[in-house]
Structures are given as structure tokens and as C-alpha cells.
């Protein structure tokens, strides 16, 4: 399909703007724009058709089952879209005086209280823009905390199952990274861990349940090891959907938690975002939280900038407010029954795992939490069919593939997270498809290798994309890649999470 730039015709436009016959002051020549940007020129009808066509070529949760592991692709209640668009929220300026923002401040304060209760900790900042930034903020808190105590600690430990953001955040925070292994049951390897924790250790970053979808059975010992060494524990909350009302990070021994509002608390994922990554901490870390803090004085709410020990700001203003409105509404619609959300998420995952066991390898065969990881290694060994092939073939059944090739310690990994909002019929249909694919790996290998079928494109050449690096339209000088040789080289690397 054409790019919107290829639909452009000089002289067309969709916008109408107010004009006044007032003089337009001259912009100093050296600062004035010489050549206008080549933005596309279309009428509104064409604009609407173009984006309607793009939407029709996009697969969302509304389109079908989307078990992308570690991303918690649950249904997004439509009422949240309604409330976030209330003018009192949508059109409120972040620099409005406090007396003109009491409703917004109260909503944020209430959300903080809720997240504190759910995580079992003590103080919350809603500011981080997403989980990754929550991680980085958490690590900055560690720095500030130890600096304040004049302790020199330069290392942070992550699991070999960790999401890529954990090590990346460690680096960005200026820490050295140490990796710890996973034991036979999928828990952290405690011996390895003991060997790596010392007085230079600032802390641990851990996802629990882990990216294997398993709850660490010895989390208490893990916590003890770090606390005994005077280090802190950071909880990567990406998997919180498994344990709301069931087990609280604070009770597990974690000192700092980030929560992915767009996962557990249903922010529409929007093709990649936005998200929200509030962090919740123990009292001891509260003084270091970002400014401004949202505080309550009796009946009034205000922003408190007077936090001398604060790490500062990690994002503009007080965070992605619209995301807070949706997640607050989402949680209020459950109330104390929020636990049910996690219960069903875990039940759905275990049911699907039970149905797939046998056809796919289960590297760590335990009850899973809200998601689980199986391996297509058996299919690869026997028929040369990879996790990628399984993923592509699933599209032919109308499903979005799960996360693949992650976590890294599981070869040919398929990481499946159904979420609680899916019906049993859907889980059954997906299971049937997975089982049929496993059978077809033997009998109809090409069908899998050539999948997907009947989509707008076949497998795309990712190697060519990276080599040529065509990352913007080039107008008259835009290359014609169809003239360059190509193979269907979809890379067997992490896709998802």
C-alpha cells in the first residue's frame, strides 16, 4: 500500500485554521525557515481512508487472542477511554495552580495509596513513564540511598532470565552488572548467588514470578542474602498480574518495586505505548523519590517540591496522567476483588500449559503463574521446525504469536501469557492450533516454513532491512528495494516481551 507521502498532491490540505488580518512580524532571516518540510498534502477524506486502511492492517487485542508473553495483553475496558477524555482531565494544564487541579491531585494521591497497598510497601511516586524508566529510577534511588549512607557499592545483580531492560538499566544507572544463574526448578541458583553477593553489591533486580512464569520458591532466602549484605532488592513488576492480592513484593522482601500500569492495570498498548511505571518503596527510601511528590494536607492536595534528598525529576511534570486515570478507573472497577483478576490469569495460564504439555517441551515443569514458557526444541530436533515457524503458522489461525526466543536460557522458547480476560473457548482454540502445528511439523513441514499465508506480506527480510537501514521515505530519491535480491530472513531473535 502507498505511503501517505506517495498520496500527497501539492495544493491539497485537510486543515482549516483561524486567520486574522493582523500583521505577521518578520522572523530574522538567519532564523527563518528556508525550505518548507515536505509534509504530505491530502484532504480529510483521503487522510481518514489512509489511516483506516493502516488500522485494518494492524492486529490488536480487539482483533483476536494476543498471548504475547510478558506483555499482559489483557482487554482494555472501554469505559477507561471515556473517563480519560473528560475535559477536566484531558484539557488540564500541568502547571495549573493547585487550587485548580484538586481533582487530578486527589486521583493521583488515591492511586498512590492503592499501589502502596497492592505492593505492600510505603511510599509511591507515579512519575516514571514506563517500566524501564521505573527500573532506572529505582537504581537511582539505590545510588542516592547508599551515597546518603556513604557506602560504596557499584554492582547490581540480575538473573540470567531477566528481561533486557534490567541489564540495560543497570548500565544507564552507572552500575556494574553481575548475572546469576537459574537452578533446575527455575528458581535463582542460591549457591551462585551467595558467591556473587558482597559488600560492593548495591542490590538485586528480580522479576517474581520470573520470566519463566515461575514463582521463586526460596524468595525469602534470596531476600535474606541481600539484606544481610546490606544490599537492596528491586522488584521488576512486569509480572505483577500474577499476584495481586495473593502475594505482595514488600512481603517477599523487596525494597523497591516498579509497576507497569499498562500491563497489570490495563493501559491500551497503543502499538508500543504509552505506559506508566510508578515505583513504590520502603520508608527508608522514601526521601529519595522524585519530585514533586503528590501529598495530602487534610482535605487539600498539593505538589511538594521540598524534598532535599530527592534524586530529582526523571520525567516532565508528574508523569503520564492519562495513564493514571485509566488505571485508577480499572482498579476501582474491581475493588477488593482485584485478587480474582490474578486468580483467573493464573488459572488460564495453567489450563493452557496443561493442554500443551506433551506436544511441546516444558523446560521447568511446575505449576506456572500467569504465563509459562514451552520450547519447540523437540520440533526443531525432529523436523527442523523452529519457534519462529510455529509463531508464523499461528497467524494462519488468526492468533497473534506468543513471545519467542525469550527468556534466553530456554532454546526455541515460546512464552505464552493468555491473561484473565480470555474465554475458555479461545484458550481451547489456541491449544488445538498449537497441537495441530506440532503434528504438521512432521507431516506438512512446508506449510509451517512458508507461513504466514494470505497476509498482506510474507516473511520479511530483516537482514536486508538492517543492512540498508532505510528508515525514512526518500521522496524522488527513495530506493526501490524490490529490485535488490531478498530472502525471507526473519531473524530467530527475541520477538516480544
Amino acid at each position, binding site marked *: 500500500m502507498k*505511503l501517505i507521502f506517495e498520496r500527497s498532491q501539492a495544493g*491539497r490540505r485537510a*486543515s482549516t485554521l483561524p*486567520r486574522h488580518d493582523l*500583521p505577521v512580524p518578520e*522572523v*530574522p532571516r538567519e*532564523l527563518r525557515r528556508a525550505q518548507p518540510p515536505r509534509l504530505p498534502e491530502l484532504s*480529510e477524506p483521503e*487522510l*481518514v481512508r489512509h489511516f483506516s486502511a493502516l488500522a*485494518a492492517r494492524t492486529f490488536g487485542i*480487539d*482483533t483476536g487472542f494476543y498471548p504475547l508473553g510478558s506483555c499482559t495483553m489483557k482487554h482494555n475496558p472501554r469505559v477507561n477511554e471515556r*473517563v480519560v477524555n473528560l*475535559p*477536566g*482531565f*484531558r484539557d488540564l*494544564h*500541568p*502547571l495549573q495552580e493547585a487550587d485548580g*487541579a484538586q481533582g487530578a491531585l486527589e486521583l493521583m494521591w488515591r492511586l498512590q495509596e492503592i499501589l502502596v497497598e497492592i505492593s505492600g510497601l510505603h511510599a509511591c511516586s507515579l512519575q516514571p513513564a*514506563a517500566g*524501564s524508566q521505573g527500573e532506572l529510577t529505582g537504581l537511582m534511588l539505590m545510588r542516592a540511598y547508599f551515597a546518603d549512607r556513604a557506602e560504596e557499592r557499584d554492582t547490581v545483580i540480575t538473573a540470567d532470565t531477566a*528481561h*533486557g531492560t534490567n541489564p*540495560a538499566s543497570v548500565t*544507564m544507572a*552507572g552500575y556494574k552488572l553481575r548475572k546469576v544463574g537459574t537452578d533446575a526448578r527455575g528458581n535463582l541458583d542460591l549457591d551462585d548467588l551467595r558467591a556473587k553477593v558482597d559488600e560492593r553489591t548495591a542490590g538485586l533486580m528480580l522479576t517474581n514470578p520470573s520470566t519463566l512464569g515461575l*514463582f521463586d520458591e526460596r524468595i525469602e532466602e534470596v531476600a535474606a542474602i541481600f539484606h544481610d549484605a546490606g544490599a537492596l532488592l528491586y522488584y521488576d513488576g512486569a509480572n505483577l498480574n500474577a499476584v495481586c*492480592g495473593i*502475594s505482595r513484593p514488600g512481603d517477599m522482601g523487596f525494597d523497591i518495586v516498579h509497576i507497569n500500569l499498562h500491563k497489570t492495570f490495563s493501559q491500551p498498548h497503543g502499538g508500543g*505505548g*504509552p505506559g506508566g511505571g510508578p515505583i513504590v518503596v520502603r520508608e527508608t527510601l522514601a526521601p529519595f523519590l*522524585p519530585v514533586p511528590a503528590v501529598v495530602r494536607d487534610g482535605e487539600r492536595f498539593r505538589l511538594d517540591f521540598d524534598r532535599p534528598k530527592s534524586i*530529582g*525529576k526523571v520525567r516532565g511534570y*508528574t508523569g503520564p496522567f492519562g*495513564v493514571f*486515570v485509566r488505571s485508577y478507573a480499572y482498579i*476501582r472497577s474491581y*475493588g477488593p476483588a*482485584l485478587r480474582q483478576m490474578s486468580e483467573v490469569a493464573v488459572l488460564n495460564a495453567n489450563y493452557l*500449559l496443561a493442554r500443551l504439555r506433551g506436544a511441546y517441551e516444558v523446560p521447568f515443569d511446575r505449576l506456572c503463574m500467569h504465563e509459562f514458557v514451552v520450547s519447540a526444541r523437540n520440533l526443531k530436533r525432529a523436523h527442523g521446525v523452529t519457534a519462529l515457524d510455529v509463531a508464523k503458522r499461528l497467524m494462519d489461525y488468526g492468533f497473534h504469536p506468543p513471545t519467542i526466543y525469550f527468556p534466553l536460557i530456554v532454546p526455541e522458547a515460546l512464552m505464552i501469557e493468555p491473561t484473565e*480476560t480470555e*474465554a475458555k473457548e479461545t484458550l481451547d482454540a489456541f491449544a488445538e492450533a498449537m497441537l495441530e502445528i506440532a503434528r504438521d511439523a512432521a507431516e506438512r513441514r512446508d506449510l509451517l516454513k512458508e507461513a*504466514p499465508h494470505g497476509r498482506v506480506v*510474507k516473511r520479511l527480510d530483516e537482514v*536486508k*532491512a*538492517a543492512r*540498508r537501514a*532505510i528508515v525514512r*521515505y526518500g521522496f524522488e530519491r527513495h530506493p526501490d528495494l*524490490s529490485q535488490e535480491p*531478498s530472502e525471507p530472513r526473519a531473524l530467530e*531473535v527475541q*520477538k*516480544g516481551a
Partner: protein
Amino acid sequence: MSQLSLTDRDREAMLAAVGVSSVEELFKDIPERVRFDRQLDLEPALSEPELVAHLAELAARNVDTGKELSFLGAGMYDHYVPAVVDAVLSRGEFLTAYTPYQPELSQGILQAIFEYQTAICELTGMDVSNASGYDGATVAADACFVAKHATSGSKIVLCEAVNPQVRQVVKTYAPGFELEVVEVPHRDGVTDPGEVAAASRDAAAVIFQQPNFLGCLEPAPELAAAANEAGALPVAHVDPLSLGVLEAPGNYGCALAIGEGQGAGNSISYGGPHYGFIAARSDLIRRMPGRIVGETTDVDGERGYVLTLQTREQHIRREKATSNITTNQTLLALGGLVYLCWLGPQGLREIGETCLSLAAYAKERLGLPPAFERPTFKEFAVRLDRPAREVIARAREVGVHPGYALGRDYEGMDDALLVCVTEKRTPAEIDRLAEVLAA
């Protein structure tokens, strides 16, 4: 629960299939002592009608731009968001998709991101843009990280006339990057290229803003030149809506162009979510943070789009990644794309001219002493005979929000008011402001 789809019958069948007798049993791997043994202390569930009523009540306690005649800007702008933006962003497929890891199912959003990257590059005069950063502040920190690796510099030169929100974020990130931050003060509203040149010795980057936070037009080309001479990357923080009338950073030597996208297609929403954009010269492409979509083909030579250059990213490169960003601001960036397509080059110029002319009209009608004798765009600072915060409080009592008190961020400017005039304001509304400030 309206979100859950399991019937009691389903539940039983599923538990049986799993081989457990109760939901409880599913959690047996959780050590006794860390199990949560009471009910969450949350307020009772609200039904959908009650939920809407509750949130409407909270919303009603905010004074939004529809309830007050607002001249408040200072980084977040009351520009008009066209209806087509809502129409596109509310399409369920865009709303509920995630990062397009599987291109065959996601050509729509991938192409949209490719189009967004192109639009941002055209706007800024750059070669490469990512799929979005968190906001106009964090992209400045991203730029520092890029500069740290692209140069041998050890510090960041930050102009004082840059939005304080941005400066605070840069200062929070810099220590982790082992970068020192040096601030260059403004002189009568603008930055002195000479001072920048002096400060830039072994700097990784120089960050300035155009138009700057004080509303003034910086000598941007000279600031960029000063940075380049010192071997530091010139980073321009720009207002996208100014780029129909103001020169693009790529055309005066900047290495990176960054900015806050809100004004271009997002509602203000009390500060977020919005999108931050970051675009760069081609030589920096492999140091860019975040998602980038590239063009390629399938076996049949059919054109298609994929996430590319992923060896920069956390999920492949882990601790060596150019950034940790994962979830980004795609939906808001899509809003930006739709908005820019709605405007077109003609609309972009018109909106710039309308801002220029209305702001000029406002300066004249207010007749207050300008804080700085400089050319401006849509914002300008005036001096008052009382503390600005007092004036603001008084004006708000009669339904007018006159602007931003610069004393919040700048020493000795308690009497300075930053007035913002977007294309949504009318001459009559400006007259009203003049009247109120004169009272």
C-alpha cells in the same frame, strides 16, 4: 466481573484439566509466609455508571482550559487537536496493539511509524528519527547518552534558557552517565554563543532550546556552530509548531533535534502521556535509542516494514544497549503523525504565522514592559508591578489565567510573566486579557 470470561462451569473443567482441586492450590509454590492472608484494603468496586460518576466528579474539580481563558504555556500548549486525530487513535486496532514484533500482522502500525519517522525528519531536517521517546524531557537525557558514546566528551553544556523540566531531568540522568552538567546563563533572554564556546571544551553535547523557555529566539545557528567547533554535539530542543516559520535544526548544523510533541497532536492531559521526539544525523543512526522501523521486502519483492537495527536495543544488546526503553509513546506519536498530515506544509506555516501575529498583537495590547527586547514566537515575557503569582491569582478569580510566573524557576524574576498565545486565542480574548491585567 465484566472483564472476566470464565463461567463457573469453565472454572471447574479447567481446574480438573490442570489437576488441582482449587484455585488456591495453583499458588502452592508461593511460600506460606509471603502469601497475602487478608483482603486488599481497597474501596468497594464501582459499577460502570458509578465509576463514570465518580471520575466526572473528580474531573469537575479541575479548572481546565475550557473553564478558564488560558494564556498558560511554558512547555505544554493549548493548541487545537483536530477531530481526525481522535478518530484515528480510537481505532481499536491501533489502540490495542503492542510493539509490532510480528510484522506480517502489523504492517499498518509499522508503516505508520515509518511515516512518523519521515515526518519528524522532514520537520527537523534530520536523517533518522526513532518511534518516540517518553516526553520532551527524557529525550534530552537520551541525547546525552548518544553524545557520551559518540564523542570523547565528559560533560553536557546546558543552556539556562532551556525548559527547567528538561534541565532537571538531564541533571538526574547525568551522574549515571558519568557526565558533568554545566549550565550557561541567559543574557537578557538569550544565550551568548561566546559563553557556549568557552563552556564547550571537552563537552559531549550542547543543549539549547529554540524558541527558548523565556520565549525568545536564540541565535541558534551560532550556538550550533560554537558546539561543533568544540567537537560537542549541538542538540536543539525545538517546538514542532514553530518549524513552519523557524529554520530546521538540521539546516544549521545540529547533530540532534529533540522536542516535546504534545503541542502537535496531543491534548495537554495534565502533562502526559505525550511523545518526545528525537532525530539525528545519519552518522548517529546506530547510537539512536528505542524502536526504529525500516523498509524491506518479502520473498516476492513486496514492500514491507519491520523493526530494525535492533542490535542497538535492550532485548538484543542487554547491558550494551543504547537505551533501556521498551514501551514507548507510539500511540501519541501516531497522533502527531495524523496531526502533521492534517496540517500539511501550508497549515504548518499558517499556524506559525497566526501564533506570531497574535502574540505580536498581545504584546501591543498588553502594553507592559517586555522582560527582554528580543524577537519571539508564540510566548513572550513581560514585567509587572507586582509579583506575577499575585497577578495570576487575581486574574484567575475572574476566569483568566494570564500565564506562567517565571520566578518559579529564575532568580530575580518574580515580577516576570510568561504569556502564551496559540492559534486558539482570538483578538477579543487577548483584549480581555489586557483588560484584566490593566485592572
